[in-house]
């Protein structure tokens, strides 16, 4: 069995290719069904975001990768990459931890991966193997988020502006936002501020008609640009992008407004070139002016900060990968152990009961002793082989040798040996059971992002 990862991301293909390949949410189930029907595919998961389209699958052989690639379509072929086994699993871990993202540390990808898992469950394409790998990847991703700073700090200009507004004003509830002009980024920032709880959105524009139209679009209140002095008294955040060739907010205007607003702090975001806000306004007390360069500098600083923590994040991923593979190997070695033990215990029980049937006149105590002796012999004999098989963790030749030696190959799994005695007495030396799977059988399906 092979773990496959077939697909492409922003690293391999330009956006023109990716947008043609992207699978809409409602079609994912259908595509998974097709993938699942390919010969040799046992389990499949399809992750489709604007930056990647990738199929993770458990297949009978590596050759199945070609068929999956064919299923993705001819446009994908020149760009797509096939990753197998450990490399494939590692890729899944890195994707979930946002180390493979265009903006490293972005939060959406983990939600998108979980959503893909939920869809694969619905489509019946998800199986135990991928589920286990995915659960481990999610755990690694969560550790990366909590133990490193790669997700800290906003990296897009509008979100930097919103974070700074929070830094200055705390909660944005009951705060007033003034939008001067109708630049696209200003609208984006205004919407973001609104979704963060800002209670009032004042929209001013040179053209009153445009102000009204925009106010309707972003559920704000149209106001006149002529009222600017009063508006500056009222607003807590002002976003300027008027397209005027001169300073709309001058130092004098702001100084007057500041006095009237009793020095309440105000955050002015200037998103235009040439600038709308006189840079010297920043020198006024409790007034903070950020222009495009300032926002970009903070964003760049956050990006650098994230990059600093990538190594630590990669270490965590490696650590979790090692733990995952160790568990996988242990699991692989387990069936032989379990079958061996079940076989030996079955023989011991049968022989003990045969002997007991032949010996008449034994009391309950003596009968128990005979059974305990049979179980103890099994335990003693199997002690060393059990330890060696566990240590080998399915990687060495002993597992197969044991299976061949004791004639255990043909059994599909540990089969209960019929128990001829209806004796409910507990086994004096209970056989160690195979360790329970440390991972949940089904990944918690959380939809977000």
């Amino acid at each position, binding site marked *: 069995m092979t773990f496959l990862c077939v697909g492409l991301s922003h690293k391999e293909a330009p956006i023109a290719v990716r947008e043609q390949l992207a699978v809409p949410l409602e079609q994912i189930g259908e595509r998974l069904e097709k993938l699942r029907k390919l010969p040799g595919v046992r389990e499949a998961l399809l992750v489709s975001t604007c930056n990647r389209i990738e199929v993770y699958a458990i297949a009978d052989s590596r050759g199945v990768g070609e068929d999956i690639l064919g299923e993705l379509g001819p446009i994908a072929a020149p760009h797509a990459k096939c990753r197998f086994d450990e490399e494939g699993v590692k890729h899944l871990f890195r994707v979930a931890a946002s180390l493979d993202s265009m903006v490293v540390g972005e939060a959406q990808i983990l939600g998108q991966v979980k959503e893909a898992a939920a869809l694969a469950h619905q489509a019946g394409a998800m199986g135990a193997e991928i589920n286990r790998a995915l659960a481990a990847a999610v755990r690694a991703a969560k550790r990366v988020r909590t133990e490193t700073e790669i997700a800290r700090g906003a990296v897009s200009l509008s979100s930097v502006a919103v974070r700074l507004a929070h830094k200055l004003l705390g909660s944005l509830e009951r705060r007033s936002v003034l939008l001067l002009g109708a630049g696209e980024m200003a609208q984006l920032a205004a919407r973001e501020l609104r979704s963060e709880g800002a209670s009032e959105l004042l929209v001013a524009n040179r053209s009153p008609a445009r102000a009204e139209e925009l106010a309707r679009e972003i559920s704000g209140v149209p106001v006149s640009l002529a009222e600017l002095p009063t508006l500056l008294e009222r607003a807590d955040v002002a976003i300027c992008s008027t397209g005027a060739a001169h300073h709309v907010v001058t130092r004098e205007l702001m100084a007057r407004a500041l006095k009237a607003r009793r020095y309440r702090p105000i955050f002015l975001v200037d998103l235009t070139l040439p600038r709308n806000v006189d840079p010297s306004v920043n020198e006024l007390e409790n007034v903070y002016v950020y222009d495009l360069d300032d926002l970009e500098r*903070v964003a760049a600083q956050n990006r650098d900060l994230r990059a600093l923590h990538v190594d630590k994040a990669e270490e965590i991923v490696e650590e979790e990968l090692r733990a995952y593979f160790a568990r996988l190997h242990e699991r692989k070695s387990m069936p032989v152990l379990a079958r061996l033990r079940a076989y030996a215990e079955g023989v011991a029980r049968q022989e003990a009961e045969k002997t007991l049937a032949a010996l008449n006149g034994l009391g309950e105590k003596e009968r128990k002793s005979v059974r305990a002796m049979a179980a103890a012999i099994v335990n003693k004999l199997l002690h060393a082989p059990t330890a060696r098989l566990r240590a080998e963790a399915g990687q060495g030749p002993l597992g197969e040798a044991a299976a061949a030696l004791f004639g255990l190959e043909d059994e599909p799994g540990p089969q209960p040996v019929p128990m001829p005695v209806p004796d409910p007495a507990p086994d004096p030396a209970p056989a160690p059971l195979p360790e329970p799977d440390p991972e949940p059988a089904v990944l918690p399906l959380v939809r977000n992002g």
Partner: protein
Amino acid sequence: MATILVHISLLAYAAGAAAFLTWLVKPDARWVRSGRLLLLAGLALHVGAFLAPADTNLATIGLGAGNWKGGQLFSLLAAITVAGYLILDWRYDLPVAGAFVAPFTVAVMVPAHLVPSTARAIAPQLYHSIALRIHVGAAAVGTGILALAFGLALLYLASEKQMKTKRPGRLFARLPSLDLIDKAGYRLAVWGFVFLSLAIATGSLASHEATGHALPFAPKQGFAILAWALFASLIQARLVAGWRGRRVAFLVITGFVLIIGTYVGLLTAPALHVAGTV
């Protein structure tokens, strides 16, 4: 018994300080949780020490008669500061202030417990003075609160500078909003002012009981009156002209320095609570 409790509580404060400082470098919420728990445990032991019988009673922590030992007032101050911080943190979620308060507490406590305590006399006529007890209590509470306000003022200035110069530093992400620091600092300044007023009024009464002078002229009294006037004008400026931010932070810092001046005056005075008379 009480001494051992105080020593253990000092250890808890020191461990709490270490936890908060580690959090500044390594942002894991577990450090903050341990820091808070350690401070809380330290405070419980500390209060236990004050209440413990035998070698401590209200007199030995500076409230009134008996021999006044150098350390106890500072010890009381530390306990009040920690209690104030825990309330502040519970109300506003300000772990970054913990990184200031916990080391401050240790800095106040260590000299208090290492310096050999020298017994200093209190004027006999004040042994049972209620005014003196209230005076010392109010002074300790007021100083504790103003120490917190001072810490927040420093935090405000550091945070504001980063915001103005547009160069967020390493800790920027962990600092609370400027608005919150400003509001919390101002509220503390108001409460500090209330207790300072009470301390001055009762101090004046006690002085009158001991010497017949309500307001003797001495460094301690001078600093206290200056600090009181400064906090009064700060509150006035905030209420009338809406002063806030940097100006208020600078005033709080100056006010706290003046309060420290009263303690220096206290330690250098020839006798306690009746300065300028004995």
